[in-house]
């Protein structure tokens, strides 16, 4: 055993230089083979994609109901007629979404911090935030919307706004901050206890440990699920319409009820997709980056 270690510690013996055979210019045989393999894979993928999609197209278009389906859902005439109405209405959705998102991020973080607090004196805060999350997460958004949107203004209190868009935004904020606070909390819980202990041992207070050590790691981890919730929120803005304002989905419904054609809904759906798909792709990208980072960290 000790001999082995001694041997290992000794300087490496000189390796006599061996003259390598002259490598010919250009790729090696192995590289060539790999390249051919890749090309074959691409061709097969391309071929199978084309075949499958062509078959799907033929199947759909030749289906007996297709002309009816196209007339009701994919009529170019109704699409170009309804889009100019639906697109400007989407502005309400955007406004509600952006405003609500900003407030949700803050309110949800406060809720999560309240639930994660450990000081005995903050116990009532923990109870309150737990009850809040339980209740608001359990009520359909639509009900919250009706309760606040029609209910509160009907009290006719002085100084209380009556604007339905305002109340719709409030309802979404209340509802979604309950969800999002749970996402934050999961992130906070996922930071190992030793991080907090180490921070405390360095002299940081509990609050400082949370602020400078736990939260930065926690938030970073939950960015993808946060985005996921915002995609959901973005779609939920269509609920604003039940209080009267004409947002994109409602505008589509108005068109549809007038023309007995569903293409306007498809137009509205496309507008929503144009908004959500980039968000979805961003989430995917962040997730995959995170996966690489974590596994990369482990290997190092």
């Amino acid at each position: 055993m000790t001999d082995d270690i001694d041997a290992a510690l000794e300087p490496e013996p000189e390796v006599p230089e061996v003259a390598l055979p002259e490598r010919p210019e250009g790729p090696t045989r192995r590289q060539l083979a790999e390249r051919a393999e890749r090309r074959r894979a691409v061709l097969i993928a391309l071929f199978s994609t084309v075949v499958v999609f062509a078959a799907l197209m033929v199947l759909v278009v030749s289906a007996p109901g297709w002309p009816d389906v196209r007339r009701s859902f994919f009529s170019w005439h109704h699409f170009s007629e309804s889009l100019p109405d639906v697109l400007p209405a989407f502005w309400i959705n955007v406004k509600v979404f952006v405003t609500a998102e900003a407030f949700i991020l803050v309110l949800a973080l406060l809720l999560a911090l309240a639930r994660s607090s450990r000081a005995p004196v903050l116990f009532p805060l923990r109870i309150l935030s737990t009850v809040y999350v339980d209740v608001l997460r359990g009520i359909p958004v639509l009900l919250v919307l009706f309760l606040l949107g029609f209910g509160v203004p009907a009290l006719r209190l002085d100084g209380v706004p009556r604007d339905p868009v305002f109340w719709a935004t409030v309802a979404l904020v209340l509802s979604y901050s309950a969800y999002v606070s749970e996402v934050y909390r999961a992130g906070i819980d996922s930071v190992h206890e030793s991080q907090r202990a180490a921070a405390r041992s360095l002299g940081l207070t509990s609050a400082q440990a949370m602020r400078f050590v736990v939260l930065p790691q926690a938030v970073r981890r939950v960015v993808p699920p946060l985005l996921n919730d915002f995609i959901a929120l973005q779609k939920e803005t269509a609920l604003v319409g039940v209080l009267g304002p004409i947002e994109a989905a409602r505008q589509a419904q108005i068109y549809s009820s007038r023309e007995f054609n569903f293409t306007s809904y498809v137009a509205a759906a496309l507008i929503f997709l144009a908004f959500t798909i980039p968000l979805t792709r961003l989430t995917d990208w962040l997730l995959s980056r995170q996966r690489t980072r974590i596994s990369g960290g482990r290997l190092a």
Partner: protein
Amino acid sequence: MAVRSKARRLGALVVVGGLVVAGCGSSDDDDAATDGDGEATEQSCAVEDLQLVNDGVLTVGTDTPAFPPWFVDDEPTNGEGFESAVAYAVADELGFSEDQVTWTTVAFNNAFAPGEKDFDFDINQVSITPDRDEAVDFSDGYYDVNQAIVGFADSAAADATSLDDLKGLKLGAQLGTTSLDFINDVIQPEQEAFVYNDNNAAKAALDAQQVDGIVLDLPTAFFVSATEIEGTEVIGQFPASGDQPEQFGMVFEDGNPLRDCVNDALASLKDSGRLDEIEQEWLSDSVDAPVIPLG
């Protein structure tokens, strides 16, 4: 199931056609004969010859909640309220007894959407319009209706006496109604109209003062202001915007031959004065509201 019942209906049609052609006639009060147009395909309106959604019963559709003065207590089966009474009068005229009438819930906008219907006719304050007529069939009108606007008596809206006075207001109406069309096409307010799933939501918004006024048919407007939302009044009613008065009609699946029989029934209800009596009984409250001229 659907195929079978369709086959059965076809069978019934053939049998009926055969009967009429053969001149056997049936023992009913067939108006087709008195029409004198001599069409052999004219169907019989005898109860046993009618093609019904459910065998042996007349299935009538309306939305829920069914509200006054059209229905009473959200209960179409009690025969109370204008439309319930009209439906039972028509059923009686067709030869159905009261317990041969069943009601089914049909959302307002679905009533006149294209497609197969699970009612024989729908009676739900549906105005007859050319667009809707392409998707479904309508009976003759059973009520001439004016649009009206309801608002709080102490609000600025209450002083409106012309269309111009209304343009600056926030107005609301139910989705897919002629009331909404009226706001957009005739009043043309400066601020976009608010649109609600149903009249209840529109009323809630008015009650919450999120809108200055909601547009409804006149009898509903009277009911809302008199009994539902305290402090509101019918600010005004609007005369018909076209040459024809706006009319409520019963809705039938496109091409349903029952329509002609119901029209015969309606005609005899009009001739006998029965329809006027029903209107007097249920809609006489909605008499005078200030008229807001369109010109």
